[in-house]
């Protein structure tokens, strides 16, 4: 298959904070799909745990009037990514589909990209990843197992995108909206995560679901002051107690 079928989309994700219950299903699904090493207790205690998507939990208000707020955070796939220019060996770069991709083979492990990332969604393999014997056959064959000494991060389930686009091309049809689902989206019980093409040109005749959500009144991006221009758009929490209804994080 030639590469010509790629580069026609601009991928993005909408995270509806209002729907998120903080159940962590996305975290688990991502772990399994992307061969992310197991987070043992020791790793968590040394703050070296890896979770390409994580759910942050904040408490709002004073006891007894306390509310828990959840916000899933994954790589924002910024258009203006601070992690990209700092890499000396082009291990991380912006691909034509609007995604921020990590090329494992090129990485030398300076960890400069991780310092540059304000969302802290980049992970370093401090050790060689090890799986218990019983897990050996559970690894996803479509995803590289990363060795020690390199960075990794959310890839928007690149392997699924590639397969979806290829299948559509093979069957000589347009890719349908919602045909490609990321692992986290698939696992989300409340449908809080929506992945899709957010390029305005591709959505002119038949707007996809993600695209129709990014223009919502509740839409916002994380840390806008840094001008990173993320491709992950959040929809604010609807809070009936609060004026205007928008709260979120």
């Amino acid at each position: 298959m030639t590469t010509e079928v790629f580069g026609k989309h601009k991928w993005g994700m909408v995270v509806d904070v209002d729907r998120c219950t903080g159940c962590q299903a996305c975290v688990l699904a991502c772990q399994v799909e992307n061969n992310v090493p197991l987070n043992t207790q020791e790793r968590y205690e040394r703050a070296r745990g890896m979770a390409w998507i994580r759910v942050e939990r904040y408490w709002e208000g004073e006891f007894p009037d306390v509310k828990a707020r959840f916000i899933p955070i994954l790589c924002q796939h910024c258009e203006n990514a601070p992690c990209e220019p700092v890499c000396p060996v082009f291990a991380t770069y912006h691909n034509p589909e609007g995604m921020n991709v990590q090329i494992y083979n090129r990485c030398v492990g300076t960890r400069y990209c991780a310092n540059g990332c304000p969302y802290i969604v980049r992970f370093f393999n401090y050790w060689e990843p090890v799986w218990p014997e019983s897990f050996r056959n559970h690894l996803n064959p479509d995803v590289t197992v990363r060795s020690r000494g390199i960075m990794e991060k959310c890839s928007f389930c690149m392997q699924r995108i590639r397969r979806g686009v290829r299948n559509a091309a093979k069957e000589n049809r347009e890719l349908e909206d919602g045909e490609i689902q990321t692992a986290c989206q698939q696992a989300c019980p409340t449908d809080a995560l929506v992945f899709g093409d957010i390029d305005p040109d591709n959505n002119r005749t038949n707007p996809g679901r993600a695209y129709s959500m990014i223009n919502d009144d509740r839409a916002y991006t994380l840390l806008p002051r840094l001008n990173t221009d993320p491709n992950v758009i959040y929809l604010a929490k609807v809070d009936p107690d609060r004026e205007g209804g928008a709260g979120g994080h």
Partner: protein
Amino acid sequence: MQQRRDLSQTHTNRVLLNSQLNTPSWWLPTVILLGIVVIIGWVVIGFILNKGLGVTGLSRPVFWGLMIVTFVFWVGISHAGIMISAILRLTQAEWRRPVTRAAELLTVFSLLTALLFPLIHEGRPWRAYWYAPYDFARGIFPSVRSPLVWDPSAIGTYLTGSTLFLYVALLPDLGNLRDRTTGWQKVFYTMLALGWRGNPRQWKLQTIGGILLSALMLPIFVSVHSIVSWDFAVTTGVEGWHSTIFAPYFVIGAVHSGVSAVVTMMALMRWLWKWGDFIRPEHFDALARLLIVVATGWLGFTFLELIFALYTLEGPELALREMQIFSWPWNVWFIVFLLTGYFIPVPLWLFKKVRNNIAMMFWTSILVNIGMWLERFFIVVPGLARKTPFTFAWESYKPSPIEWFLLGWSVAWVSFLMLLFARFFPLVPLFEQKESQVFTTNVKIGRASVPAIIREQE
């Protein structure tokens, strides 16, 4: 001010070449002891390469730790050489002469050490050559937008320039040594001396070479630590790093720590080789005066850095500064940093008695370098530990024993290299010393006898 002291050329030769012609008895045991530490250190580095960076205390998001701090520290020390030999040469400060070579040497060896740390701090150091525009088979040029590509270029240029500078200034002394040795040593020095005969043409070329290198090194001197500082300052995502003051702040801090390191070394040279005739209290006095000015400037920059960190009164920045200054155990270290970096040494240097006391200068200069190391720690680590509003990723950092060992090892390694060099080459430039003898004299003004210098123009 350099007091006139008549030292005959024979005496100068005998005393300053004592290490080459008849090795002092303490030299071999010291070198062996340091050598053992050095070997252990290389074994530890091998261990890190074998096991991976898991053996350090690094975490997420404190991705850079003690090794980067130590890297910045040694790059800072390396600024001593150019400060002493180039800037003071261009400004015609007479008192620089006895320490130029030692300062240059410190530059070269500390740069070598500094280069090592980011290398072993990488995830895959065996791929480090990908930084160089060399591996064309891959078809990927290094990213010139990355400060990590600017860094090796700047430091590499600095190292090359310093080595040349050192060598050019060594030539007359190599000729001297060649004429005073026999056997294999004679062959060794003959090869290195490049046919130095000391005729007017050679002196002229040597002088022009020295001045040209001084002038060319000045921009490098400023740019090296500026570029190191931009590793941090261009990063928007880390509170406390994205500050415009970093470049000059790093440079003046580097001069502060580098000149202090030269003072430490001068005291050691005076004690170990008994060079009291050549390295005299007035040299310490002059360096201490220079240090008072530099340190005060540095303190001003520190003040500006803190003021403008708080300037916008934004949450994350305040959280960072609160941790850095008020929370245990940072607060204790912050006080130690201020005391050792400025408030103990500088007020002491205001007294002429202290400036002329070699032991006091030795200890205060060591204090400065403790403070300056802490300063780099305070710049690199807290910013990462309290990176952004995402409090779930706030972390602390506890360096592992291996990282602490490597910090100590780096000192042993530089000392080892210095001692090894001192065995084969004179640490005090003989020709500078003799030149100084020729150019200084005493004049009578009224009833007073005042030291005077012959200059080409004033």
